[in-house]
């Protein structure tokens, strides 16, 4: 777990951020330190210079003895003064002060005085030297502890600050990464379950609408869609298996019957003919299924051409007219002339035929209209049957779906007609809508974009 946290993106990001942030803190403090440290030292030097100037103001008008006595006086009476003095003549002999003689050098100087501290330890001094006109030398020095203390304070502050930054950064990184890792782990676990086949699983969300929630939301929506599609597929393949088993079974029975009954040639012939009719029905179902698949794959777009819709609808209605008339239910048509769309004539004929066939078979009397709106052509097929419940409007388009058991294979075909019709309508840039007419009966409308 620990090693995994260190490998997480969030931890790496936090670590990188900590390093960058720490570096910038160090740079800022460094600049501040440099500026402040210089300032303190310059202030210190200025004070020392003032003292030196006061001492040597009137030299050489005042005699060296006066400087010496001023120094002794300051040493004895001024606890707030610099505290360390040296006054040498031009030959390097010490005339006054508590510092050992040294080579004269003007300007600021750092020196260490062993045994000069109050506890007898070493003391570090900051001094300011001045060589007088006759070669005498004055040095005023003070304990530089205030400067060093400030410096140490700065350095310690910088160190602690950086340490705190690092600790907070790494710690925060660990905490954040652990949190993220927990959520990712939860997602991973569920994804594994889904991979194993449990499609009902959904990724957890926190309800905070953060980026994880949005991601899991999208993934869950995707899973819903996949599950629905798979469910549809499963349904269709079950239906196919079921619907093909029956005619295949009948086919087998007929062949077996023919084989068992040693009949006349004419009886054999009849059996074989019945078996062939059954095989043809099966092939018809396969054809229809393949056609749906093809149309859905859109491979027929290549066959698109200008189609005379008026003639097409007229012809298809005419094809059903004969059988409708036999039952005394002539199809009535109202077809506006000269309407043309770009599409696949064969498929569009099939779609219209399927709808008219349904209307003739289930709806008693069919009425076919072809009209146009500003944007669409509408082929309306209305019947005078019982209509269908609105809750079934979507389901009847499913392959092999039958509205009621009585609409069985004999009277109702394979249950693929509407599925084909809708697929065709959609690939031809349209759709099919169903509605129950107020005066009774069903209305199917194919709308095709102009």
């Amino acid at each position: 777990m620990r090693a995994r946290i260190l490998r997480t993106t969030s931890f790496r990001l936090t670590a990188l951020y900590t390093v960058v942030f720490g570096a910038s803190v160090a740079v800022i403090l460094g600049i501040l330190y440099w500026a402040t440290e210089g300032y303190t030292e310059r202030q210190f030097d200025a004070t020392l210079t003032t003292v030196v100037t006061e001492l040597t103001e009137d030299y050489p008008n005042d005699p060296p003895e006066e400087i010496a006595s001023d120094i002794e006086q300051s040493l004895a009476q001024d606890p707030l003064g610099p505290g360390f003095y040296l006054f040498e003549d031009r030959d390097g002999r010490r005339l006054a002060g508590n510092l050992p003689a040294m080579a004269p050098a003007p300007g600021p100087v750092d020196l260490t005085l062993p045994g000069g501290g109050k506890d007898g330890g070493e003391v570090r001094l900051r001094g300011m030297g001045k060589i007088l006109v006759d070669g005498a030398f004055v040095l005023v020095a003070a304990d530089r502890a205030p400067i060093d203390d400030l410096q140490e304070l700065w350095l310690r502050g910088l160190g602690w600050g950086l340490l705190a930054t690092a600790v907070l950064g790494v710690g925060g990184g660990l905490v954040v990464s652990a949190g993220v890792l927990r959520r990712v782990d939860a997602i991973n676990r569920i994804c594994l379950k889904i991979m194993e086949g449990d499609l009902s699983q959904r990724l957890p969300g926190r309800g905070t609408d953060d980026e994880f929630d949005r991601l899991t939301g999208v993934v869950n929506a995707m899973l819903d869609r996949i599950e629905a599609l798979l469910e549809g597929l499963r349904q269709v393949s079950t239906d196919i298996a079921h619907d093909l088993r029956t005619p295949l079974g009948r086919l087998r029975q007929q062949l077996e019957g023919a084989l068992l009954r040693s009949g006349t040639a004419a009886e054999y012939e009849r059996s074989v003919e019945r078996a062939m009719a059954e095989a043809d029905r099966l092939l018809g179902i396969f054809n229809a299924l393949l056609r749906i698949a093809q149309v859905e794959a859109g491979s027929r777009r290549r066959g698109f051409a200008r189609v005379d819709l008026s003639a097409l609808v007229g012809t298809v209605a005419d094809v059903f007219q004969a059988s409708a008339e036999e039952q005394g239910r002539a199809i009535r048509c109202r077809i506006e002339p000269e309407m043309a769309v770009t599409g696949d004539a064969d498929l569009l004929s099939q779609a219209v035929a399927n709808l008219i066939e349904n209307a003739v078979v289930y709806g008693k009397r069919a009425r076919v209209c072809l009209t146009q709106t500003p944007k669409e052509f509408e082929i309306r097929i209305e019947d005078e049957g019982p209509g269908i419940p609105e809750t079934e409007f979507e389901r009847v388009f499913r392959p092999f779906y039958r509205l009621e058991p009585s609409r069985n294979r004999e009277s109702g075909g394979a249950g693929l007609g509407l599925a084909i019709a809708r697929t065709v309508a959609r690939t031809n840039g349209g759709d099919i809508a169903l509605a129950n007419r107020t005066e009774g009966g069903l209305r199917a409308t194919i709308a095709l974009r102009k």
Partner: protein
Amino acid sequence: MRILLIEDDADTAAYVADGLTANGHAVEAVDEGPRGFLAAASGAFDILVVDRMVPKLDGLALVRRLRAAEVETPVLFLTALGEMEDRVAGLEAGGDDYLPKPFALPELLARVEALGRRARQSTAETVLRCGDLEMDLLRRSVSRAGRPIELMPREFQLLEYLLRNAGHVVTKTMLLETVWHLRFDPNTNVVEAHMSRLRGKLHRPASAELITTIRGAGYRLGPPA
């Protein structure tokens, strides 16, 4: 007729070859594209029956090449289930007819023979005849034994197709395609109904039926040729 069959599936090839041979045609079968092309290019055949998917050179490319080489022998394409959408491509490549598998032998036979006739027929004919039946294509009129017969447009088209193929079997599918322009079976009796109306109008007492129903195959106008 001399028929070249280009088909790689041995079972289908045998089924087709046997069926065509049994009906008096001379069949030569080839199971791959390049040899099929050479045989077809020899010009020794009246009809080519070409499977869409043959090894080495597929049916479409083969026919396209033949047409480019100005071999105008009529071509009937055979295609497996699921390739129906390629009908347009097949016709564009230079095919003359298109038959999806699986097909019934009578269907294939009727189409092959119709293709052969079409190739020999002159299109300039304006009057079609069969016995005492006469159709004038320019005046759009039909008469039997000199007596005029009134036909609806659809019946006229139906009779025209029967006359052009007089003496030969035409199938229901062929009629649906040419007269109604439908390439699927709409499960109606539209052909039967029109045929029965046409028969009624053509009927003449005391003479034989002009249109014969051939069981399991289709219809034939007049005595077999």
